[in-house]
C-alpha cells in the first residue's frame, strides 16, 4: 500500500477532463454531466458519490461512450492509458468495451438477457475479444463462475438468469465483466438492488478480485458506507459537477464541501449515541437540471452560502494535500463569515 501522502501523484489509468454530456429535448438541453474532472489511479478504487440525478451514472456511461439518443457526449476528454476515448471510432471502442474497460450495472435482475443461458452470455465476451471457439469459451465461462464463487458452476452455466437469485446474477455480471481481464472495471451501484448480507459478499468479492487481478475500479454509489469499505479515493458529484475529490480517509475525517458534510451527517451513526437527536438532512432537494442555479449549484441548499456563492460558480481547486474542492469558502475571494467551520456542523 502506498502512503496517503502521495495520493494523486500516482499514474492514473483513466483521467477525465472537463467531460460534458447533455440530453437534448425539443426545447432545451439538460446538462447531466457538466465539466467533470477526475482521475482513477492504477490498481485503486475511485468512488463516485452523489444523489440520484447528480450525473454519476451518466459519467460512467460516457466513459464507454454508451450514451444513447437523445443524449450526447458534448466535449472534454476521457484519457485511458494515454489515449482519448472520445476520438476513437466505434469499432475501436468495441475493442475496448468488455475487454479493457468493463462495466457492471445496478440491476442484476434486468441486466442479463432472459433468453440466453448464463454460459452463453459470459462466453460471448470470450468469443468477441479473444476469438475463442464456442466450446472453449464455455469452458472458460465455467472457470469464471468458479472465480466469482458460484457453487456447481458446471450446472449453473447452463441455466437461465431467471433461475438464479439476485446475488448470483450479480456474480454472473461480475464474471462477465471480468472475463477478458479488464484493466478498469466500472461498477454502477453494483449492490444497491441487493440485500445487506449479499451486498457485503459482493463487495468482498470485488475487493478480493481486485487484489488478485490488479484492476482499477470506479465504484459508483450513493452509499457512503460502500465508499468507506471499498474505495481509495472519492469524487463527490452534485448536479453534474465534481464538488470534492479526496482520499477516502481525508474525506471521512475532514470533509470540506458543505454538501459532503451534509451527506455524511445524513448517515445514521452506530458508534455514538444519538437517541435524542434526529438524523440530519440536507435541506431542500436537488433542483431540476433545467433550472440550474446561476452560481454554485449547491448554494440554494447550503447553510453557509453567501453573495458570491449565489453569483458565481467556484472552480475545482487543488489544495496542498492533493485533494480537490469546489467551494468559495476555501478561496481568497470568500466574502462570507471569515471563520467558517464547515466541520463544526457535523454532529460528531
Amino acid at each position, binding site marked *: 500500500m502506498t502512503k496517503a501522502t502521495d495520493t494523486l501523484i500516482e499514474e492514473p489509468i483513466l483521467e477525465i477532463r472537463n467531460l460534458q454530456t447533455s440530453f437534448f429535448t425539443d426545447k432545451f438541453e439538460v446538462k447531466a454531466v457538466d465539466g467533470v474532472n477526475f482521475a482513477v489511479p492504477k490498481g485503486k478504487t475511485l468512488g463516485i458519490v452523489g444523489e440520484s440525478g447528480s450525473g454519476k451514472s451518466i459519467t460512467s456511461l460516457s466513459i464507454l461512450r454508451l450514451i444513447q439518443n437523445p443524449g450526447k457526449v458534448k466535449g472534454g476528454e476521457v484519457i485511458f492509458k494515454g489515449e482519448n476515448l472520445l476520438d476513437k471510432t466505434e469499432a475501436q471502442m*468495441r475493442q475496448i468495451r*468488455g475487454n479493457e474497460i468493463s462495466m457492471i450495472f445496478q440491476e442484476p435482475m434486468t441486466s442479463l*438477457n432472459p433468453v440466453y443461458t448464463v454460459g452463453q452470455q459470459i462466453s460471448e465476451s470470450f468469443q468477441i475479444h479473444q476469438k475463442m471457439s464456442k466450446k472453449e469459451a464455455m469452458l472458460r465461462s465455467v472457470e469464471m463462475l468458479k472465480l466469482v464463487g458460484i457453487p456447481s458452476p458446471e450446472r449453473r452455466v447452463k441455466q437461465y438468469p431467471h433461475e438464479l437469485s439476485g446475488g448470483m446474477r450479480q456474480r454472473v455480471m461480475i464474471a*462477465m465483466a471480468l472475463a477478458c481481464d479488464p484493466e478498469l472495471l466500472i461498477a454502477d451501484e453494483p449492490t444497491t438492488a441487493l440485500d445487506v448480507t449479499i451486498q457485503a459478499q459482493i463487495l468482498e468479492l470485488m475487493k478480493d478480485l481486485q487484489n488478485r487481478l490488479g484492476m482499477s475500479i470506479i465504484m459508483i454509489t450513493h452509499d457512503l458506507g460502500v465508499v468507506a469499505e471499498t474505495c481509495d479515493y472519492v469524487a463527490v458529484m452534485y448536479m453534474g459537477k465534481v464538488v470534492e475529490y479526496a482520499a477516502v480517509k481525508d474525506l471521512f475525517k475532514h470533509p470540506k464541501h458543505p454538501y459532503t458534510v451534509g451527506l455524511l451527517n445524513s448517515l445514521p451513526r452506530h458508534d455514538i449515541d444519538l437517541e435524542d437527536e434526529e438524523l440530519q438532512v440536507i435541506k431542500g432537494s436537488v433542483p431540476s437540471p433545467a433550472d440550474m442555479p446561476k452560481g454554485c449549484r449547491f448554494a440554494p441548499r447550503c447553510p453557509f452560502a453567501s453573495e458570491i456563492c449565489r453569483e458565481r460558480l467556484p472552480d475545482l481547486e487543488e489544495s496542498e494535500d492533493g485533494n480537490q474542492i469546489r467551494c468559495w469558502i476555501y478561496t481568497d475571494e470568500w466574502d462570507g463569515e471569515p471563520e467558517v467551520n464547515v466541520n463544526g456542523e457535523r454532529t460528531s
Partner: protein
Amino acid sequence: MLTFIVRRLLQTIPVIIGVTILTFSLMHLIPGDPAQIMAGESASPEQIELMRERLGLNDPLPIQYFDYLKGIIQGDLGNSIRSGREVSGEIALRLGNTVELAFYSTVLSVFIGLIAGVISAVRRYTFIDTFVMIIALFGLSMPAFWLGLMLIRYVAINSDLFAASGWGTWSQMVLPIITLGTAGAAIIARMTRSSMLEVIDQDYIRTARAKGVKEQVVVYRHALKNALIPVVTVVGLQFGSLLGGAVITESVFAINGIGRLIVDSIRSRDFPIVQGGILVLSVLFVVVNIIVDIAYRYLNKRIDLN
C-alpha cells in the same frame, strides 16, 4: 418438453369435443326442420320422412350426437347433400390449397413484417420509421377483396407473369399470397416495432453493448429474440384466422379452397359440408395454437409450461 406436448394434446380433447357439439348443434339450430330444408322446398312429405330417417333425426338427441361422433372418429363426416359425395373427400380435396395459401401468406407477412418492424424500431422517429409505419397503415387498411381486385386489374392483366385465377403454379399463387399476407405483414410490422422499442431500452441491451457486441448483433441476437415473444402469439393467431378467413381471397382468385367450399355450401344449404369444414378448421386452429405454445416455450425460457 415431450410431457408438455403430450399434456397440451390431451388438453385439446375437451376443446375438440366442444367443437363437435357446436357443429352437431348447427343442424338443429337452423330454423325449421332440417329434413325439410335438406330435402328441398318441393319435396313431398314422404321424401322428407325418408330424409329424416336417413339423417337419424328420429333418434333421441344424445344418440344422434354419439352417432355423429362415431362417424367423425371413423373419418366419416357424412355426405354432401348437393353432390352426394363424401364430405371428408370434398374437404380433403380443397384443404391443401387453403393451408398452402394461409401458410405462404403467413410466411410472407412474417418475413416482411419482421424486417419492416426491426428497421422501423432501429431508426425510430426518423423519416424511415415514419415511412414504414405509413405503409403499414395502408397495408392494414386495405380490404383484401379490394387489394385482390386491384392486383388482378393492374398486375395480372398487364403481365403474363401472374395469373388472375386458380391455384397450383407459382404464377397463380403469388397474387393471392400477397393479397392475403399484406394485412398480416402490416400487423406484424407494427407489433415488432413496438416490441423492439420496448426491448431496446432494457438493461440487458446496455449490458450487451458494454460487452463490446456489435450493434447489428445487439439488435438481431439480443433484442429481436426477446421482441419476438409477443410477435409469435400474433403470428399464430393470424395463421389460424387466415385458414378460415381466406374465403374472400379464394373467391376473388377463384381458388378451390375450403373457405370457398364452406361459403358455397352455406348458400346451397349443404350442411354436412359446413359442419365438416368448420370441424376441420377448428381442429387445425387448435393444432396451430399448440405449435405456437411450443415456439413460445422455446423463445421464452421464463415460461414454465409444465
